[in-house]
């Protein structure tokens, strides 16, 4: 248990006002209370505009706030357009998955950080997409809201798709993250609860721990590092 206690946990997909019902500062307070070291406030709307969150609250101690956007698109050219538009504006670019074309477009674009809820329509990723995700460093999201919001048949379908995603991600060594996809502070869960749900999704305990701590941490480091130009190219001096 020692390693869990000493880890920093991040939740990289949390939605706030004006898209959903909680203000950023409320979400931050609640996330801090749940035991996180940082959250990413992700804009999600049909226009795909990033609204900067001006937080009037003093940032809590040992807590980091990141900004992100979850892009919803219905075809590939729009997806790429929105990704290009959001570049350099946000810390983390997330693509709202589920549709097979969009899943493919997201994992093949190295500028995307996270493919969110790829299994939300009950269709798992295949070996080609998992390999592409590993090659391009696009993290595959295991959203716990699939488990806590659905009941019965739809949950079974989504869960079995998620299990296959986990199996393939392990095989091809694609990064995995667990996010809450929270729409209000009632959707937030503590890190260990998220790990428990991740273990139900077919991860080992260690993988679930990394999916909440080191993998999100490395995504953030990668994006906050100004010297980095692209994968493998970095300004050294």
């Amino acid at each position, binding site marked *: 248990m020692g390693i869990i206690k000493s880890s920093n946990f991040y939740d990289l997909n949390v939605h706030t*006002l*004006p*898209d*959903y*019902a*909680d*203000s950023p*500062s*409320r*979400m931050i*307070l*609640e996330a801090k*209370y*749940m035991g996180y070291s940082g959250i990413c406030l992700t804009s999600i709307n049909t226009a795909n505009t990033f609204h900067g969150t001006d*937080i*009037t*609250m003093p940032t809590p*101690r040992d807590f980091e706030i990141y900004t992100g956007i979850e892009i919803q698109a219905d075809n590939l050219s729009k997806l790429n357009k929105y990704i290009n538009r959001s570049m350099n504006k946000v810390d983390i670019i997330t693509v709202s998955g589920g549709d097979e074309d969009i899943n493919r477009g997201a994992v093949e674009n190295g500028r995307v950080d996270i493919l969110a809820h790829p299994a939300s329509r009950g269709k798992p990723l295949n070996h080609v997409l998992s390999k592409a995700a590993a090659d391009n460093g696009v993290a595959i999201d295991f959203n*716990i809201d699939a*488990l*806590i*919001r659905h*009941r*019965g048949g739809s949950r079974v379908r989504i869960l079995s798709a998620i299990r296959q995603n986990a199996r393939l991600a392990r095989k091809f060594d694609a990064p995995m993250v667990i996010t809450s996809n929270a*729409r*209000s*502070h*009632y*959707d*937030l*869960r*503590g890190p*260990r*609860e*998220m*790990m*428990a*749900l991740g*273990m*139900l999704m077919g991860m080992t*305990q260690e993988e679930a721990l990394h999916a909440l701590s080191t993998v999100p941490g490395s995504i953030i480091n990668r994006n906050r590092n100004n010297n980095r130009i692209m994968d493998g190219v970095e300004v050294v001096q």
Partner: protein
Amino acid sequence: MKILPPTLRESNRYLAISVTSEGDIPRRDLVNEILFCAATLHGDAGSSEMGIRLLSFEENKGIIQCRMDRVWETRAVLATVTSIKGMRIRIKVLGVSGTVRGATEKYLLTQDINEPEPERKRTQTIKESRMIIDVGTISGEVVNRNNNEIDLLSEDPHSLEILNRSNTRYFGITVFDIKDKEIDV
């Protein structure tokens, strides 16, 4: 009948929990909801192996008993509890201990001095707390207040749409969001 000797008993773990909710939760409803969630998530066979029991529940804090090797599964069950009779609810596990006394002393009675836990006792909706405040585009009535955290009830159509999308009754805001900080809510 003779009781089982201690060496033959199942060994248990005790989870200290704290519950956040939109309204008051009766103990019986909480028990039913947790057992229902266990049955939907793990099935009857799985939940019989977990041996979940709610030992005490007072003022939104309680202790849950489960089998020693089923703590992770129990955590998963507690995470899937989302609402009771239309009221949103969230369960946070404060900690796990091997005895009831340990769980109570370590997690329920103590308060972290460095970071005081927000008191979960909710203020009554007395008359003074009913006032219109502005949070950007949203205005409404204060329903609950708890340190810096405020629950806001709003009824204009645009707000209702947002609340519907989030599946909650109230907007969650903080005192930092209110423009006029002089207001004594």
